[in-house]
């Protein structure tokens, strides 16, 4: 971690933005290294059985960050991917054999070199792109309802960088799309359209003045937030922040996406209000990942779970159902 302090790329091989503030980052990192060391020790002290059992302790541990060395195993377990893999009658290696050469695989092929082209690992490694293709093509073949949706390439690509395992990445992608997230990726993208409406309602409730301003400027949520839902903040926020968010999505589900969205909006309230036209507003949303309060992933995640203090999946489902009904009338 420390070695990347003055590097132009982060530890996952992503280039830092041009305007990256290395000094502020250095200040954050010098604190965060201590946090990481402490968290690693706490995880070590956790009984092996407690590491994978969903308890309030583990939930708290996950919110404070899963050590990077543990991520693959912990994600596999808390997300249900491990269970899915165990219960599957067929191994990934044999699922892979059924790949057909279709227009879908052609489309995936075009997108492979367009996935993280600036990432040093993807650019300099010939195996990663091939593994990414295998994951996406195998998934597309076995989930006909989804097939391939642009955006999944970023999720699978980041899973691959973190787990370094093609097989785990496949099951994690599968559990995300089929169990954890709403129907974002199917042909109609109905789950996305509903969640954009849900976000609009939440912002209106939590930040009425801001909501009025955004409406007046005329920015559709689809512009600012499609990537939030589709890519789960990959390609939007700094990598370490994204992984901290994913820790919680794998454990707590898609409501975490809304918590993060509302926190981003709250942190940038002033900048959004100061945006005088659409161009300024879109730019403000685009640059949110560069804010030190977002780069500081540890503090950011504390904010994420501060407001609202409680946010149940049941409540979210109710709001989703309401907007689903509104859309179909």
């Amino acid at each position, binding site marked *: 971690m420390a070695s990347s302090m003055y590097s132009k790329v982060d530890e996952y091989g992503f280039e830092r933005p041009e305007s990256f503030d290395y000094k502020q980052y250095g200040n954050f990192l010098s604190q965060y290294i201590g946090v990481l060391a402490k968290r690693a020790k706490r995880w070590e002290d956790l009984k092996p059985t407690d590491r994978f059992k969903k308890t309030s302790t583990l939930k708290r541990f996950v919110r404070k960050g899963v050590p990077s060395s543990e991520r693959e195993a912990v994600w596999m377990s808390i997300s249900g991917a491990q269970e899915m893999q165990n219960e599957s009658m067929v191994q990934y290696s044999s699922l892979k054999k059924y790949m057909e050469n279709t227009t879908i695989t052609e489309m995936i092929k075009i997108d492979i*070199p367009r996935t993280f*082209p600036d990432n040093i690992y993807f650019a300099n490694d010939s195996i990663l792109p091939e593994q990414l293709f295998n994951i996406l093509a195998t998934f597309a073949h076995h989930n006909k309802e989804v097939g391939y949706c642009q955006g999944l390439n970023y999720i699978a690509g980041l899973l691959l960088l973190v787990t370094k395992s093609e097989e785990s990445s496949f099951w994690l992608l599968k559990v995300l799309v089929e169990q954890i997230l709403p129907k974002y990726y199917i*042909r109609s993208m109905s789950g996305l359209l509903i969640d954009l409406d849900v976000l609009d309602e939440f912002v209106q409730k939590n930040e009425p003045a801001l909501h009025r301003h955004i409406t007046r400027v005329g920015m559709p949520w689809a*512009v600012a937030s499609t990537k939030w839902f589709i890519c789960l903040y990959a390609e939007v926020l700094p990598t370490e922040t994204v992984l901290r968010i994913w820790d919680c999505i794998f454990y707590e589900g898609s409501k975490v996406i809304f918590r993060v969205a509302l926190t981003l909006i709250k942190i940038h309230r002033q900048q959004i209000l100061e945006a005088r036209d659409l161009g300024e507003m879109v730019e403000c949303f685009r640059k949110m990942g560069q804010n030190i309060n977002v780069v500081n992933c540890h503090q950011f995640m504390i904010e994420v779970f501060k407001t609202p203090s409680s946010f149940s999946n049941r409540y979210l489902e109710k709001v989703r159902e309401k907007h689903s009904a509104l859309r179909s009338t």
Partner: protein
Amino acid sequence: MANRTSAAQRPNGSTQGKICQFKLVLLGESAVGKSSLVLRFVKGQFHEYQESTIGAAFLTQTVCLDDTTVKFEIWDTAGQERYHSLAPMYYRGAQAAIVVYDITNQDTFARAKTWVKELQRQASPNIVIALAGNKQDLANKRMVEYEEAQAHAEENGLLFMETSAKTAMNVNDIFLAIAKKLPKNEQTTGPGGSGQGRRLVEGDSGAKAAGNCCK
């Protein structure tokens, strides 16, 4: 590239002539080069592997035509078929559209034709549509004949150019051609409004919008 963004700004208040603002949308199949055309036009750059657009991107660029400053508000959309359901929100109220296809791929031309039909049916009645046959630098792999696309453009009253975001060929030209064709009456704003929140009036944004004239 003459009209690329430069940092130079005219002193406040010296607005000469009119400022017109137009909403322009880019449509077309995935990976035909929509984002690359915009990147070339707005920033003068080209990336061999442009990341796929998820949702849409919004950029602005200004060109000058005689005494008129034309500010384009550009909506660059995602090309994959399933993102289609989001497209109407971007072309609604648009005064101009560039429908892009890849000259090395016949399917993308077929898709471009259906985009043109959809725009003629659903978008503003006076929308100016340009057809762009992109990747002209790969003309040795051409699958769509120039004459075929030109004939389609003529039949449908479209502007037509073959472009290359890679070499910059015709990129500025196609935007300029659109700018010329757009009606530049006073207060050119979206027909029917559609609540775009435009508040650009003459002189209002002299320092902001009119900074990069090409002539």
